[in-house]
């Protein structure tokens, strides 16, 4: 656990970057620091591994004041991922990943074997090991940055706006990859972003900071959407809070009815459309096992009769969800939404509520 106790950072010119910040970062979960520029989120992150030292207050890591630990030693035990990846241009990818193991004195063979393992783990083709950073795309470099941070298996990972310099499609695939990795690794992750949607997608806990370095609210993402503490947080969260919080409810609970005759299907049982007057009209699908209530609602809105088509993983019709069935669930969750169950991370809804494209825009991923 990482604890901030009354931490303040004041620069010589009198600017206060972080003002009396007290919070706890729980072990094994993702805590996101989010806020507008100038809110001190990056400064707060960098005080954990002493890239910046606090002016007053203290930060403890599993009970130990970080100020007592020699900075290089401290940093070797904490993974660090920065915005532009910051890979060493003169080193091959495999040696970039093995940076911290080399520093810790592992023998070269063991360090490289570990690097190769991580290369695959972050979804990169092992053939990239012998390349240099300039030969990789921005998204690939960022994956290498994550692999490098994980190389010595540190319990804590600090990520400073790691995905903000890549395009939205690559960003989404990197986010999904991080969630997948985290479900296996259970690291204590502190993640800094200015993007509230990213914070809500990735965070088990979200700390919203306001300009001047003060904590506005710290809560689970669903709670944040339901009960923003004040106007600042409400404004920062933006519109559609009601719909966005549906992302935290699994569509598993939706009552399904048998597919009616108006739904045309092909010989494999995949939906073709609703029979109306002369032909087939549009429809929307969701997978109750994998999708959220938000995807189910979206699917319903895409059908002229307001009925969402439930499909299985292979796209075959399992039944339909009528609006009344969805409304029942909306009513049941009107007072609040449970925080995301472990392992249930909604994929961003794709067109028609279908599962989103796999990060296909990026080249060089391990054969999938």
């Amino acid at each position, binding site marked *: 656990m990482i604890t901030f106790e009354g931490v303040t950072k004041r620069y010589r010119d009198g600017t206060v970057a972080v003002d009396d910040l007290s919070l706890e970062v729980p072990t094994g979960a993702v805590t996101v620091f989010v806020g507008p520029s100038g809110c001190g989120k990056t400064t707060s992150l960098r005080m954990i591994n002493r890239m910046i030292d606090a002016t007053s207050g203290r930060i403890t890591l599993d009970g130990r004041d970080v100020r007592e630990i020699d900075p290089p030693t*401290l940093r070797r035990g904490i993974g660090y991922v920065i915005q532009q990846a*910051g890979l060493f241009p003169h080193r091959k990818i495999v040696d970039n990943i093995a940076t*911290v193991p080399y520093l810790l004195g592992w023998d070269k063979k063991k360090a490289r074997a570990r690097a190769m393992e991580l290369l695959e783990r972050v979804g990169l083709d092992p053939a990239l090991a012998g390349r240099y950073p300039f030969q990789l795309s921005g998204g690939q470099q960022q994956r290498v940055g994550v692999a490098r941070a994980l190389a010595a298996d540190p319990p804590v990972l600090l990520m400073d706006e790691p995905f903000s310099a890549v395009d939205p499609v690559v960003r989404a695939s990197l986010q999904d990859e991080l969630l997948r990795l985290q479900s296996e690794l259970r690291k204590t992750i502190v993640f800094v972003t200015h993007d509230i949607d990213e914070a809500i997608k990735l965070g088990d806990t979200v700390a919203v900071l306001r300009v001047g370095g003060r904590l506005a609210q710290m809560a689970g993402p669903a709670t944040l959407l339901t009960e923003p503490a004040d106007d600042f947080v409400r404004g920062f969260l933006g519109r559609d809070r009601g719909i966005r919080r549906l992302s935290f409810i699994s569509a598993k609970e939706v009552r399904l009815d048998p597919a009616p005759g108006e739904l045309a299907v092909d010989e494999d049982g995949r939906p073709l459309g609703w029979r109306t007057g002369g032909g087939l009209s549009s429809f929307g699908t969701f997978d109750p096992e994998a999708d959220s209530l938000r995807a189910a609602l979206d699917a319903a809105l895409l059908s002229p009769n307001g009925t969402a088509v439930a499909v299985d993983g292979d796209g075959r019709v399992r039944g339909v969800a009528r609006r009344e069935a969805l409304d029942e669930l909306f009513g049941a969750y009107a007072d609040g939404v449970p925080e995301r169950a472990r392992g249930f991370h909604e994929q961003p809804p794709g067109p028609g509520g279908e599962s989103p494209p796999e990060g296909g825009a990026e080249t060089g991923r391990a054969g999938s």
Partner: protein
Amino acid sequence: MNWLVGFFGDSANWSGPDGIPTRLLEHLEFSAAAFLIAAVVAVPLGMLIGHTGRGALLVVVSANAARALPTLGLLVLVVLLIGVGTVLPVLIPLVVLAVPPILVNTYEGVRGVDADLRDAAYGMGLRGRQVLFQTLTPVALPLILLGLRLAAIQVVSTATVAAFVGLGGLGRFIIDGLATKTYSSVIGGAVLVAALALAVQLAFTLLDRLVVSPGVRPRAERGADAAR
């Protein structure tokens, strides 16, 4: 052309204390000594100043001052001060000439490394010294080598002035040739100095290939080499 044939075709020019091999060796000796002294002083100093950021003004001031000094004038001054007979009068001006390009390029190379990269290096847990030697220096290496190459070429070309104060080297062919109006010797000497400068250039290009990581070569040179 006839002069060239006359100079290089004369077997007398290829042996003895006045022969091309002897003069070439003398020339290389002054040059190498001056170059090495300059490199030993300027490379570490440039790295240190680039890394710590302290003393940057020193780089600028000394570089400009040294550039403004006329080599020949300095040579005469040093000879007047300490007299002829030793190699020092030649070495001092050559070292003074060689230090600025090495110092400036090394400093600029190290200081110019991307701040994000420096940040990442510290963030991974490298210590100051490791950041300098494992990250900043390899990334700055193309510029450091550029400085060394410029210095070496200047030294080799300028070492010709040793002949003015009675020392050997390829300058002898030029100075003596002028004195005796043996123009084949003047031209031959000049050609030898030029060829030597080109050889130095070539040697540094090869060194570059050998020690600079393909990951930090200038973009234009990268493609063929790094894509394997």
